[in-house]
């Protein structure tokens, strides 16, 4: 068994284990942290698969994203610590079936598919990053710029949705007054 296979199996098992923990713990902060560990394990899998830039990017992005998520959890939840052991699920059996069927279908496709010859040669990390930069600012520039514009639009849209419109405030009060 090669070292790459062993590390891939280890980090893959960690990613799956923490993904299951996300929905099994009652504490919302714990589930946000479990999701962070799961995503970090996915980033470590990228490093094992020699996609170093993407691996580091995934770990850095998810560390920030999940910390924000944990803060939102504490803000929004009635019981963020999970001390009351509240039931937070619905249609559990049907969801389990859907998840199980999706798993079996994806496994079936991946194991029965004919993937052809597997590549063994790979560019060095520095060369890979260089090639990715040329790809981003060359052939895929339009897609890359569109992604940047989409993020900007989403940021503005999310802020606009989140702030309370000032003109609605008196209306609401008048409504309550009657």
């Amino acid at each position: 068994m090669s070292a790459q296979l062993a590390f891939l199996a280890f980090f893959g098992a960690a990613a799956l284990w923490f993904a299951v923990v996300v929905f099994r713990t009652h504490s919302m902060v714990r589930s946000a942290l479990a999701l962070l560990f799961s995503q970090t394990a996915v980033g470590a899998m990228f490093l094992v698969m020699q996609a170093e830039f993407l691996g580091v990017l995934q770990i850095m992005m998810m560390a920030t994203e999940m910390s924000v998520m944990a803060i939102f959890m504490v803000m929004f939840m009635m019981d963020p610590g999970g001390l009351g052991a509240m039931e937070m699920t619905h249609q559990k059996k049907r969801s389990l079936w859907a998840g199980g069927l999706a798993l079996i279908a994806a496994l079936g496709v991946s194991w029965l598919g004919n993937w052809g010859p597997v590549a063994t040669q790979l560019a060095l990390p520095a060369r890979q990053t260089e090639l990715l930069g040329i790809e981003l600012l060359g052939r895929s520039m339009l897609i890359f710029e569109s992604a940047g514009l989409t993020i900007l639009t989403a940021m503005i849209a999310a802020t606009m949705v989140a702030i309370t419109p000032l003109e609605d405030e008196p209306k609401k009060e008048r409504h309550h007054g009657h």
Partner: protein
Amino acid sequence: MVIELLLALGIGAGLFGVGLYGALSQTNLVMIMMGVELMLAAALVNLVAFWRYLHPEAMSGQMFVLIVMTVMAVEMAVGFGVAIARFRSRGSVEMEEARELKG
């Protein structure tokens, strides 16, 4: 070498199954978003595995990974925007209480 590809695809399938279960079974908006994040992470694992083991010379594979990461960030931003709006107007982000959205 093909066993590494199959292992990575299997882990991707597992993450997708767990994410789908979470997105369908949870009643809280933020927990549903966590399920969606897991499904997108499964897509990322598959894309990196395809790039590494099938076409390491084509950098458009890594480009695709960057686009999926963008989708993850956008999903988080819009999801939290909606969560804040919902929390302000109704005081909760429980989806069981959002039945009036049903057409």
